[in-house]
């Protein structure tokens, strides 16, 4: 029996350790006249013992234990069973056992993720200076099984009217809030946005009920202000959005914008039609439900005739602490299914990472609960909430991030591009981290 490393071996009578060595030095064939009764406890290694002593004694006790087990075995006591079949006794080694580590690649990942290009340059009938290519992966993100063909990209939010936002975010945009074009310029010029999302929220009948034609003008202004690819977002009103996105798509004809979004609870066919007619990409948006995502993708392809290279998915982003577990696992399952051959799910993904700012930890001055430890300054909590929400989803397979805070954008870019493999830095020696003075 092994209890916390103590070997209890059953013997006839107590014998001094020193006697045992000589007693059982040779081969033992049989032992007669020894009854198995009392317990002799042999303790391997006494805490606090002189190391040299312990070492010497360790050798002895190890040998003794082995001998004693042999005796028991000879006497028919089921030693191996007592020990769970693992009767190997500890022993001291003086050399490392040489070994090689190896591990295989994942065989089931045979289906690459669809490649999707956003934006069109003049040679392709658009006016963008650059394009963004998403997808094409043949493995989970940053895995060694297959190199990731394209890095992650970030599109920053711009709204067509001033909106309420967390103080930490707002301070970056106060000077441009009344001009979507200036706002768009600022995120590209100052904050390194790869793309811009123009949210046409004022079109909501409950907000300003801006007409589709007027909204389309805003889109034109943004297209003129920046030369990166853009995302065109509606207000989220399912009745109004199809008309708004249709008009905006027309105004942006040929630019390969991302139309956000087609969903099952609005007239997705109308949005799909606008994308086909004016050469845009459709964002297929469902709410944390893998089967709904399959259904909508299937409908967009089969029923509406949208080409595979014009579909991106938004399976919904819930903030850290507010359902990120569902969002993460939903995305990971979608990506694994796609890589393993589900051609209704192997599309690149987009995340509304800005949703992280809905978490009270991101914006509230202090905890509303008296028993919580101090939450510290909220200025630092908000950006990291957005970073961790995005980073977690990047590991699940998300390709494009819709974000708000400049610091969050910088840090997420840094880590995703490091894991992607494009960040070169001086090597760091971590061998003595334990004694580092921090």
């Amino acid at each position, binding site marked *: 029996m092994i209890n916390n490393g103590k070997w209890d071996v059953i013997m006839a009578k107590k014998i001094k350790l020193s006697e045992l060595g000589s007693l059982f030095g040779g081969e033992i064939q049989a032992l007669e006249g020894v009854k198995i009764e009392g317990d002799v406890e042999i303790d*391997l290694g*006494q805490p606090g013992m002189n*190391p040299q002593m312990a*070492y010497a004694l*360790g050798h002895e006790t190890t040998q003794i234990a082995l001998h004693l087990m042999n005796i028991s075995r000879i006497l028919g006591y089921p030693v191996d069973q007592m020990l*769970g079949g693992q009767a*190997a*006794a*500890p*022993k*001291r*080694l*003086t050399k*490392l*056992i040489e*070994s090689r*580590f190896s*591990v295989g690649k994942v065989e089931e990942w045979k289906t690459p993720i669809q490649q999707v290009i956003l934006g069109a340059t003049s040679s392709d009938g658009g006016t963008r200076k650059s394009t963004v290519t998403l997808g094409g992966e043949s493995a989970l993100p*940053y*895995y*060694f099984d297959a190199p990731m063909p394209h890095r992650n990209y970030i599109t920053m939010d711009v709204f067509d009217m001033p909106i309420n936002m967390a103080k930490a975010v707002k301070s970056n945009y106060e000077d441009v809030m009344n001009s979507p074009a200036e706002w768009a310029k600022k995120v590209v010029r100052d904050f390194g946005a790869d793309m811009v999302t123009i949210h046409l929220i004022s079109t909501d009948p*409950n907000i300003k009920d801006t007409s589709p034609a007027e909204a389309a003008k805003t889109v034109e202004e943004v297209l003129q202000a920046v030369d990166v690819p853009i995302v065109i977002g509606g207000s989220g009103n399912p009745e109004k959005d199809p008309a708004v996105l249709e008009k905006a798509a027309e105004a942006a004809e040929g630019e390969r914008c991302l139309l956000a979004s087609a969903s099952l*609870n609005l007239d997705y066919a109308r949005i799909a039609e606008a994308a086909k007619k004016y050469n845009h990409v459709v964002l297929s948006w469902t709410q944390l439900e893998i089967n709904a995502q399959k259904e909508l993708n299937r409908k967009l392809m089969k029923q509406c005739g949208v080409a595979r290279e014009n579909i991106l998915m938004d399976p919904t982003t*819930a903030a*850290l*602490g*507010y*359902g*990120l*577990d569902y969002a*993460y696992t939903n995305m*990971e399952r979608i990506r694994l299914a796609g890589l393993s051959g589900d051609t209704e799910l192997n599309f690149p993904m987009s995340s509304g990472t800005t949703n992280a700012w*809905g978490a009270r930890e991101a914006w*509230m001055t202090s905890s*509303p609960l008296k*028993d*919580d*430890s101090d939450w*510290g300054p909220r200025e630092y*909590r908000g950006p*990291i909430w957005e*970073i*961790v929400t995005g*980073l*977690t989803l990047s*590991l699940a397979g998300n390709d494009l991030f819709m974000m708000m805070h400049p610091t969050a954008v910088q*840090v997420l870019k840094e880590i995703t591009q*490091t*894991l992607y*493999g494009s*960040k*070169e*830095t001086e090597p*760091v020696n*971590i061998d003595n*981290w*334990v*004694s*580092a003075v*921090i």
Partner: protein
Amino acid sequence: MKLNSPLQVYKYLPQINCAECGDATCMAFAAHLIDRSKKLDDCPPILKDEYKKKYVELLSLLAPEIREITIGTGEHARKIGGDDVLYRHQLTFFDPTAFAYDVWDTMPEPELVERVNKIANFRKFYVGKFLKVDMVAVRCVSGDAIKFAGAVKKVSETTKLPLILCSFDPAVLKAGLETVRDKNPLIYAATEKNWGEVSELALNYKVPVVLFSPDLDKLKSLALTFKEMGIKDLVLDPGTYPQGKQLKESFERFIKLRRAGIKEGQKDIAYPIMSVPLNAWLVYKDAVTASYWETVLASVFTVRYGDIMILHSLEPYAMLPEVHLRDTIYTDPRTPVKVAPGVNEVGSPTKDSPVIVTTNFALTYYTVESDLSSNKINCYLAAVDSDGIGVEAAVAGGQLTAAKIKDTFQKANFEFKEKTSHNTLILPGLAARLQGDVEDVTGLRVMIGPPDSGRIPGWMEKNWPPKPK
């Protein structure tokens, strides 16, 4: 584990349906062993001598792929490892990543004590429980064994949390172990250079030990060697480099180790993995930047297979996302996410108490409920069946509607005329657009609450009781 159906497990059980385990049949108990919601020791008969052989066999067949080891003693002892799957949706992850925060032996004593208390007392309320951190890692910076032992002693007098003793010098580790020999600390670390002496310590003091090498061949050699010597409570540190290509390679090593352990059943390396996000501080000197980057590293390795980690920053903006992300990844995806729809009392509501509406998404419901009860607001709280979706998404997606709200009160036989003096209902701020509909459908007066339930106390001061129209 090596078994994957209840039938396979059933063969080893006594098959007497005694129900002592709480299940009516052995087959039902077998199903619980497969989904790991019960332990074999929950079956009293199989512990008897006559079943000993089957018990031992079944125990090893049920053992998780990744070895589960225990650090510390008593109620604060913490298990790590124990995983059976690579993706949480395949079952669930077990033994959440243990977070150890560091102290060092050159700290002045009052600072040391203050820091340990800060680690031990950290708490963040979340869905009916407190998120906390787990361990204290004592680093030897002085190089002095006596000084280190003094720091270890002070830490162990200050907290019952498990300890990690950190030094590459066996003499220093030994001095630390002498101080806390009965506390089952984890020792860090055995390397290619010092493994002989550190293995002696692990054997003599019977403590779990970390093996450190960024070279996976060497790490496996160390693990094999230690196992051969009878040391099985091992933790592998394949190195957490803080940036650049080295970080990418660190990430790959975590994936490789865990894939080998779980998918390929390579027992020789199927141990818990340690990450050291603290290494962010080796490259960033600015505290905010370093804290941010440390949190980033902690996030990467919480998602991808870190079972235990050593961290430095005690800033709330680092610790809060860290504990929340760990909860995110380790929450059992098999447990229901909804609460039962209905109208519940918070505190002792009277006719003058408010009636507040929220959804039946567990997270939303518990958040609102704890905000109300911790601020001692007596009220009725209605959980509307929104298919377990939060307020904002449910309003957008049509799962939270005026009809559903009316239905919830009807099914609960909640008559506003009888139960309240005000005939008023409070909608969440994020459901403001339903106000007109709800008024029409229910005939009640409808007020719009704040968008976040944390602001209900302030809102109540201004708006409650409602002014007569």
